């Protein structure tokens, strides 16, 4: 096993641990936005798709890469838009805004 692979395994383990700790703290209230959010973020496979689509390594690689870019991009654009749309709907009760404003003023 190469040194790079070993480091990658460490990264994987630590990221998994951080993910577990972070995600168990998210209330069921926001589980649907969470799923949409992880979908949007997983659009990061766009970076791998871009490299394949732009590397000029034959027709097959370019074609596969282009389709991959399109699907990943659909997740990025659609994902972030829909998460924002959803989270914008979660509002606190209007009567609390006064307290909120006071809290903000104190800071």
């Amino acid at each position: 096993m190469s040194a790079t692979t070993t480091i990658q395994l460490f990264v994987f383990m630590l990221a998994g641990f951080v993910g577990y700790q972070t995600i168990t703290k998210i209330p069921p209230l926001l589980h649907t936005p969470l799923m949409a959010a992880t979908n949007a973020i997983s659009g990061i496979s766009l970076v791998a798709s871009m490299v394949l689509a732009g590397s000029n390594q034959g027709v097959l690689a370019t074609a596969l890469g282009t389709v991959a870019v399109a699907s990943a991009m659909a997740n990025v654009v659609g994902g972030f838009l829909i998460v924002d749309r959803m989270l914008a709907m979660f509002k606190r009760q209007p009567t609390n805004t006064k307290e909120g404003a006071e809290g903000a003023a104190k800071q």
Partner: protein
Amino acid sequence: MTETLIQLAYLVSAFLFISALRALGKPDQARRGMQFAAFGMALAIVATLFHARIVSYEWILVGAAVGALAGYPLGRWVPMTAMPERIALSHAFGALAATLVGIGEYSNGLSTGEIGSGHMVALGFEVLLGALTVTGSLMAFGKLSEVLPGRPITFPLQNVFNLTLLAVAVLALVVLVIEPTLLWVGVAMLVLSLAVGVLLVLPIGGADMPVVVSLLNSYAGLAAVATGFAIDNNILIIVGALDGFSGFILSVAMSKAMNRSFSNVLFGAFGAQPAQAAGAAAGPAGEMSAISAEDTALRMAYAERVIIVPGYGLAVAQAQHAAKELADMIEKRGGDVRFAIHPVAGRMPGHMNVLLAEAGVSYDKLVDMEDVNPKFPETDVSLVIGANDVINPAARTNPGSPIYGMPILNVSDSKSVVVLKRGRGTGFSGLENELFFDEKTSMLFGDAKQSLIDLGLEIKNA
């Protein structure tokens, strides 16, 4: 130098992504957090444009334009009720990207003749997991959007057959690692994985979809992790791990809320089980007592504490707005209204919260099962809308019931209960609910949306 800058950009992106997930822990910070994450994504994309392997941009631009055009309506116009199938579809997109990258990198490796075994392991997992997630998610999408029949489709020895296919696919992967140039083995693995995805979702019924959609989320994440290993990209490993764990945690939470083990959901084909007959046959004693909208309205108008319990029936009847109006009306008269949300109230984790938030219910009124259960004894009226199994007291009292042990909303603890129900029949699982026959329960029969509108009008006049 450029390479270092690209990696640093990825580092910043990873930080922003993790911070965004942390922000999702608090409803008032979540939106800002996700906006930062979107910035992180843009940063990663721009940085990648300078990657040494990229020599031409036209196809990247074509793909990106097509993707953005497809993504915009998926983000802007899909209604919140369609969220489960929308999410299933984007699992398919994500997994498709991973699968295609895997195949492309494999073909590149074949032409240059340099595929190490470590590289092949990563590529193999990427394609295997990716491909089965693509077809599995498309199946889930079909079932959720009712293009395909939602009921479980089973055949004899199904599990044995499916697991054998999966085992053969894994075997093909092992062969490929030993001898990467065997192209036909690679093709066979791809085809088998695609077939396994279809077959895995085939026996799963509509109500079990929350678990499956979450699980596919997890697989899509793991496929991204494999991509990261294959092309030496840490940010893919990090994001994939976050994604994988998120999906896994959600599917475990969903299974728990449905009182089923993981393997039972995946291999059990719930809708096909005859077990319910026993519970239904016994039949609870007594009669359901019907109530009119006027009487219900009167009771609710003078109630101090009301808890509304929405089930999937509420979403089916599109009655979220009517429920919100009713809640406003009661609050105007000085009553306190909360919404009690069971984890599997919708068709995906947290779905009901989104539907009610969309209708304008503020999120501090949406209370999770654990927090709301202690509040039922001091509740004057619990109004149940289109929920059945998640409030069935048999889950607590009757060890013979198939849902015994399932965590439920303890509606039966409240002082009185009004159930909005279409008819006298049993619900989705075919189980009788003794709560409906209880003395303190009144049944308001009719379409949920119409009943809620009637109630609102009556309360206004009360």
